């Protein structure tokens, strides 16, 4: 109530003091977020940096141990394995996901009837994708007696326990990530709308086939959007946790085939009472994501085209 009347008063008043009051209101509204950032995010981040240089078992006080945690990373076989799994997941699932998103955005951009329905329908998985409920559902679908095997059974193919077989478990998580293509798709759609129709008209007049139009007009003009989606989804994929945690029951199994980096970090910290090392691992992940993003920005100079 008070916030509303404040807004009305602000809107009514004009002149020199209005801006100042605007700022005040903005700070007021930002305050809860800011407090949350400091207490819930920034505080623990600073803390974890300190803990990265300690041996901390959660129960007793942390002991400073210098760079021991970082040295240990060099010989930690499970960490190297987790890195392999995570890189595979990121490098396979992100391009696939973006390709699906772009493909569907192109289809939807052609002005289908009931477009807003499809847009929502395809966007929905993005909202649900990293939820526990969907991960549980995934377990059922890809289980030994799940939906996938029932369908395969109908066409006479012998299925298997997809999530309990180390050869296929990671693939089911890749499929799950690809399935959440809705968010980048919506952004692609917005981007496609920005491309002036006259370019396509001119190209049609000159007799350029559709494929050529896509390559020479759509892709270059959409490249900033592709870049944006790429950066965002790579970061997102590196941080994936829930899916692997739920699908593997927290183990990263079978045979560590779904041991995401974040899952390994969690196991060290909370299952093995090894929070010092886990904190150091968190900072390594930050460095890795930072490096990937930096490389992305560097590479962008060569392929992203800004039309201005």
């Amino acid at each position, binding site marked *: 109530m008070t916030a509303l009347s404040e807004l009305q008063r602000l809107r009514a008043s004009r002149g020199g003091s209005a801006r100042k009051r605007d700022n005040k209101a903005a700070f007021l509204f930002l305050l809860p977020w800011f407090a949350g950032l400091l207490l819930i995010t920034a505080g623990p981040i600073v803390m974890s940096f300190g803990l990265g240089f300690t041996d901390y078992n959660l*129960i007793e006080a942390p002991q400073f141990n210098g760079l021991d945690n970082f040295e240990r990373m060099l010989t930690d076989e499970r960490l190297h394995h987790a890195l392999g799994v995570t890189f595979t997941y990121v490098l396979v699932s992100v391009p696939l996901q973006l390709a699906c998103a772009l493909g569907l955005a192109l289809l939807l951009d052609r002005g289908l009837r009931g477009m807003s329905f499809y847009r929502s329908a395809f966007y929905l998985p993005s909202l649900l994708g990293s939820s526990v409920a969907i991960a549980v559902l995934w377990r059922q679908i890809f289980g030994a007696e799940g939906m996938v095997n029932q369908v395969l059974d109908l066409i006479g193919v012998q299925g298997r326990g997809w999530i309990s077989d180390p050869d296929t478990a990671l693939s089911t998580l890749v499929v799950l990530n690809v399935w959440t293509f809705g968010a980048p798709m919506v952004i692609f759609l917005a981007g496609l709308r920005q491309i002036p129709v006259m370019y396509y008209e001119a190209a049609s007049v000159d007799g350029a086939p559709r494929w050529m139009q896509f390559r020479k007009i759509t892709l270059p003009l959409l490249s900033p959007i592709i870049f944006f989606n790429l950066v965002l989804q790579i970061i997102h994929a590196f941080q994936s946790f829930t899916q692997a945690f739920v699908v593997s029951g927290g183990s990263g199994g079978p045979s560590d085939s779904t041991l995401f980096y974040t899952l390994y970090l969690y196991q060290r910290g909370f299952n093995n009472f090894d929070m010092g090392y886990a904190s150091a691992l968190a900072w390594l992940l930050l460095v890795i994501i930072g490096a990937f993003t930096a490389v992305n920005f560097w590479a962008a100079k060569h392929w992203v085209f800004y039309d201005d």
Partner: protein
Amino acid sequence: MRYTPSRRAALALAVSLAATAALAACGSGGGDASGELTKDPVTLRFTWWGSDARHQRTQQVIDLFQKAHPNITVKGEFKDWNGYWDSLATTVAANDAPDIIQMDELYLASYAERGALLDLGTASKYLPTADFDPNALGTGQIGGKQYALPVGLSTYAVVVNTDLLAQYNIPVPDDATWTWDDLKTIGGQISKASGGKVTGVQSWGFDAGGVNIWARQAGASLYDDKGDVAIPPQVLAAYWQYLADLAKDGVAPAPSVSIERAGAGLDQSGTATNTSVFATWWNTQLTSLAKASGKNLKLLRLPGEAQTAGAYYKPSMFWSVSSRSKHPAESALFVDFLANSQQAADILLTDRGVPANTKIRAAITPKLTATDKAAAEFLDSVKVSKPPRVTPNGASGIEAILKRYTEEVLFGRMTPQQAAEKFIAELQAEIKAA
């Protein structure tokens, strides 16, 4: 970017020291429960893991206790097994541990040796332990201090579905003499007779019990008295070789099916769904299994026990009190109610194992259901020797490690020998690091 290692190192040091100082405050412990009980209102937090049936029974016991002690409120916090340990670790770290903690043998040393648990010996005024078998009490002691009070006892067993056996015209094997080869042979006959729909044996290798017994039957042990890993690699390799053979010969289900079931819990196990005839379980799980399967199930002693006995009593769980509890005396009083009162026992029965309190055990025996009675009688009939050393500090993750290497072996990604060597090295490293 200019690189200035000295300044960075200094910053890192400063920040980490600050963090260390900030956290040092949480490290202290060591309460005492010999003080007087208060008349003021007190709230105790009590946490446990388990099934819905356990939650209901436990709540009834809490209600009874509160009626007897109107100034004490007990707040129950219950979870499933996996979430339980994650949450306990974080609450203890946050200096917000529940007062009364249901503890497991796997984690006992990890918490006790780090000072998170109260020495219940200081609480003997409120929590007498005279009715407990001294051997059972010993399982809750570390360095001579009673950090945990055993609740119930259980022992590793084979559960057999006698209805299915009858269906395939196979007699129940004599568990006084049978060997591991017998289990493989009979299991193979069942898999063959059912055309693979029902397998003879449900694969195991996902819990510490199986490997403990296997080691003891070979005259070895998983850990030595000092708490180092002591199982010889070839013994462990033979264990995995046996499991791999069961899967390869179709005596047990395909590896991916076994692993999925192992992760899905009791209700979806081969025993509960009547798709495996023989399976290893703790004897106290008989009632839940019989309820889920709806068939006649029977407990058998493990194969190979006639040759070298490896069986032992495992405390199914313990009661512990947090060393940082603000109300240690009242907490001890509540544990006393759980462990020593007939009123509570009449409700809890054998839900947490056959009671380790011998007086209580005798008192509830006439009230047990048929399967509970069978489990209790089985416990008495098994010839046991000294229990294995408590899982050492740092080794609480043994089941996760064990499961991982079992998977490697079942999927043929490692030979049993390789897995055995790597398992031993990894477990030993965890113990050393703690």
